[in-house]
């Protein structure tokens, strides 16, 4: 039994190393100084330094990482919260009264499987007319659409798990639907709401295509900003700096994801199985 477990640990370590190799390599490179990067491409840092991070975290003409981080934060917050707001009342009506079970539910859930580029172009046109191009609000609205299917799915599952008797008791007390939703159903759905938020925030933060198409200067999110950094550095990319930018860009979702990994894994499985 014992040697078998040891073999499993070895396989795990190997898999973890291979799957995370780009992340590991980037993290290591971020600690290499400007001179060392060109001399030493190995996974060993001879003279670890924080100079790359210092440069990245200092505002300059070329790179204002706080601007990108702020854009991503605002857009991802809108993209994570808005779908919960619009999906919650419908999720309850769907479970308790069958509203929209036939058409609306499959329609929304299937959105997840469509290539997003389909909507990107008409949205670009609409946004240019509505003045939403290159705004955090505009980007947030799209990210909300991206997150809508999973939000609805998770909330429908959550409401379905609430025993109907609890709601009936509240009804007996004469609570009206609005109050019932806010005072009884909403608190009971809290775990699902947290999961939906965490998952939605990470997905929104990591989105790239819409950020690339719908923003140019003011509302550029972190993922797109990081890719600019590669494109604009002319002939040679400064790999140490580039690596530090990527570490900063990947850190917020990573921290959130690792702290909440149980919730994420759960919702991913739920989303896949019910879809």
């Amino acid at each position, binding site marked *: 039994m014992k040697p078998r*477990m040891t073999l*499993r*640990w070895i*396989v*795990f370590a190997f898999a973890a190393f291979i*799957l*995370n190799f780009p*992340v590991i*390599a*980037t993290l*290591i490179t971020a600690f290499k100084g400007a001179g060392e*990067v060109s001399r030493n*491409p190995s*996974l060993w840092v001879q003279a670890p330094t924080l100079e790359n991070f210092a440069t990245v975290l200092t505002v300059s003409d070329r790179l204002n990482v706080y601007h990108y981080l702020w854009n991503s934060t605002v857009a991802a917050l809108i993209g994570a919260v808005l779908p919960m707001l*619009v999906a919650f*009342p*419908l999720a309850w009506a769907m479970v308790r*009264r069958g509203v*929209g079970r036939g058409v609306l539910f499959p329609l929304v859930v*299937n959105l997840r*499987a*469509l290539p*997003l*580029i*389909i*909507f990107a*172009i*008409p*949205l*670009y*046109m*609409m946004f*240019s007319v509505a003045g939403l191009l290159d705004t955090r609000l505009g980007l947030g609205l799209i990210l*909300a*659409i991206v997150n*809508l299917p999973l939000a609805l799915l998770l909330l429908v599952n959550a409401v379905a798990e609430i025993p109907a008797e609890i709601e009936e008791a509240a009804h007996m007390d004469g609570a009206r639907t609005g109050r019932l939703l806010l005072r009884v159903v909403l608190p009971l759905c809290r775990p699902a709401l947290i999961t939906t938020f965490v998952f939605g925030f*990470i997905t929104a933060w*990591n*989105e*790239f*295509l819409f950020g*690339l198409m719908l923003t140019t200067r003011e509302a550029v999110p972190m*993922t*797109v900003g*990081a*890719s600019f950094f*590669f494109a604009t550095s002319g002939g040679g990319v400064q790999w140490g700096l*580039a*690596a530090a930018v990527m570490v900063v860009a*990947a850190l917020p*979702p990573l921290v959130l*994801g*690792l702290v909440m*990994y*149980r919730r*994420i*894994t759960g919702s991913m*499985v739920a989303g896949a*199985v019910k*879809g």
Partner: protein
Amino acid sequence: MTNRRENAILAAPLVLFLLAILGFPTVLALVYGVSDTSFQTLTSPEFSGLANFRQVLADPTFWQAAWFSLRFGAITAVLQCALGLALAVYLAPLVRLHGWTVAILIIPMIVAPAMMGLMYRLVLHEFAGPLPHYLYQWLGWSPAFLSPAHVFKTVVVAETLQWTPFAFLLFLTAYQSIPEDLREAAAVDGTRPWRRFWTIELPLMLPTVWVALFIRFIDGFRVFDNIYTLVGAGPGGSTTSMSIYIYETFLRRGEIGKAMAAAILLFVTAFLALALAQRLTRKAAR
């Protein structure tokens, strides 16, 4: 009566949101799909019938992109599911004792695909990249990963390594939900683990296999971020997926009507494929 009004109010936020953000653009897409437009004449599209569609269907790059997406989706889906299944079944006893190991293995999924593409630029870089460095050191030789000869394999491997954790997670959950007494019964009968996997466990996990293959195929088919940040359209357009094709047609070449027509074709195809897949799974469930 009051209930019906109430239901309408409860459904209204989501319905209005959908109509505003997706309904209106869909109408726009249809209008521009049958019009002759450029960025200069954005507000006065001129009706041109099905000309855009004819143009798209006659464009060899479109078919190349469609073929790329199909191949990419199918190959990565199969690879990810095979690897994910093997890892899940083999590591399940370890995961049961040490839950945190899962968190380590799913890190790639939490990193933005666009970032992953950029990271691979570093990893594969001729001079700064660790992978060519070690290959030279150990084998005295390293392939040009992003050259026309190898770029397809490179993007397939990059996509597979990022999303194998997803398949792993699905299979792990499915594996853990197999009742323990089934396994014990098999052990009492003297069934070897390998045989037990093929005759008992795999058949029980088969529905999950189909779901995982389907989801990974769809995501592979519509791939954009990681390929775009790693190699763009690729040497000679060799990594132009459907999404990249539409993006380039629209923003790089400004052929709005054509891009829209391609998007509509993609939408219709995806919709039909989805409906078909759901019909099949429903039949299989019965």
